[in-house]
């Protein structure tokens, strides 16, 4: 499923809402210092809905903003999210089009790989000295937290899509009916 040709408006709107959530909400809903990564989630959801090209672009931009908000090294999250967006989008195109359970599974896997890649890069550049402890205390709890939010968000978005589809189909049907009457 590569809908990269479809309208940019929902993606831009979604990206703005995502970063607002990251700045305003995320710090206040941290559990044991584990803060949800809305930027990562939105990149994966964009990859599922629009494919690799748009997802990698969204990932790069959101990653850059995320790094500016956070206090870590700038450039790590854009790298992680653009790679993740591209990878998840490519996989989705080949294997997972349309199936909600598969997409939910993909969110779980993608979030884990995103958090893991972030941790590996931080360890490589010397920002994080204890990789194993970070894996246990940051990557795994972060994956669980992000996945739970993703599992709530994706069905909601899908339901929104379905109702929009139904509305457009019914309006098309009513137009056809009017034409036939004439």
């Amino acid at each position, binding site marked *: 499923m590569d809908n990269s040709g479809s309208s940019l408006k929902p993606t831009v709107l979604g990206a703005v809402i995502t970063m*607002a959530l*990251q*700045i*305003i*909400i*995320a*710090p*206040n*809903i*941290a559990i*044991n*210092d*584990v*803060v949800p*990564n809305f930027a990562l989630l939105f990149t994966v959801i964009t990859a599922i809905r629009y*494919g*690799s*090209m748009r997802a*990698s*672009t969204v*990932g*790069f931009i959101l*990653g*850059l903003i*995320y790094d*500016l*908000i*956070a*206090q*870590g*090294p*700038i*450039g*790590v999250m*854009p*790298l992680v999210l*653009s*790679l993740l967006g*591209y990878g998840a*989008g*490519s996989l989705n195109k080949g294997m997972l089009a349309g199936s909600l359970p598969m997409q939910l599974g993909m969110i779980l896997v993608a979030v884990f790989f995103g958090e893991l890649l*972030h941790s590996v890069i*931080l360890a490589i*550049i010397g*920002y*994080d*000295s*204890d990789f194993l*402890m*970070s894996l*246990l*205390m*940051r990557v795994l*709890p*972060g994956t669980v937290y992000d996945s739970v939010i993703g599992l709530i968000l994706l069905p909601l978005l899908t339901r929104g899509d379905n109702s929009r589809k139904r509305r457009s189909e019914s309006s098309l049907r009513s137009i056809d009916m009017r034409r036939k009457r004439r």
Partner: protein
Amino acid sequence: MALSPKKPKKLSGGFLLILFIVLSIVLMTVWIREGASGPLHSVRSGFATITMPFQYAGAMLSRPFQAVGNLTANLGADQEDISTLTAENEELRALVMQLEEYRQENERLSKMLELADTYSLDSTGARVISRSADTWNRILTIDKGSSSGLRVGMPVLSANGLLGQIESVSQFSSTVRLITDSQSGVAAFLQSSRTEGIVSGSAEGLVYLSYIPLTATVQPGDVVVTSGAGGVYPKGIAIGEVASVDFSPTDVYQTIIIKPITRVSTYEEVLVLVGNQSEVKINVNVGSQSSDGSTDQENPASNAESSNSTGGSDDAVSGSSGNPDTPIAGGSDGQ
């Protein structure tokens, strides 16, 4: 052969990805190599100024929910009583630690006249407007910045003890890296034995006192305070108390876990140490002595304190122009 109109070239996904990877690596390299006054740090500082109102709004929005959370956590007891007693208890424990520190110092130094009081510190209050926006850093954002005279490296305290150090400053806000963060380090000593070590945070959220040799006697409950080595944190600020001690005969150092006296989640206001009154007093004295014709050598203790204090502020400034962890390195050098 008929000429067909050329289609505009479309960027391929692979090309775009390579471009993003290269850009990210360039950004990382620039960020690592530049100082605190570099372009990326400046952009981050500007961004912090823009996002500050939103962070503030988030903190305001979450406050009632946090209150509800506290209420449910303490069901069965009067919330106001618990809050008052907890706060009072923490303040009293901090006071006992502080008084013990004063007593010991008084005993050791009472014979040395004209010693400047290292605890008369100038501070300014600030409100916590946000906490860390990511999992990897334990930080606070406060509502005062360079416009209020804050600088990188200044120590930040709660009413009870040490919280952390200012890491970055924008015009109207500052970021404080907490002592519980794994990137943080504070030169400290055990109040009872005066054995010096480094207090540092960790990924798992525990705070360790490192470099304490096996020969030192450490008991759970021993108080840990800042040593003043490195010149960033003033001497004698309460950090916490020893929660557990562990070592095996083959170890070089003991593994000491500290229970910090400050609970970050409960604080809405903090104190930033903007200067040391004694430093000002000493400088004034030195100035007056010079005008009388006497030399600085007449008061070596004051001179030593003065140079330490100046060194401290220099360290803090060097933190702003280079690696923010410079003061921490200074702390370890002091061991």
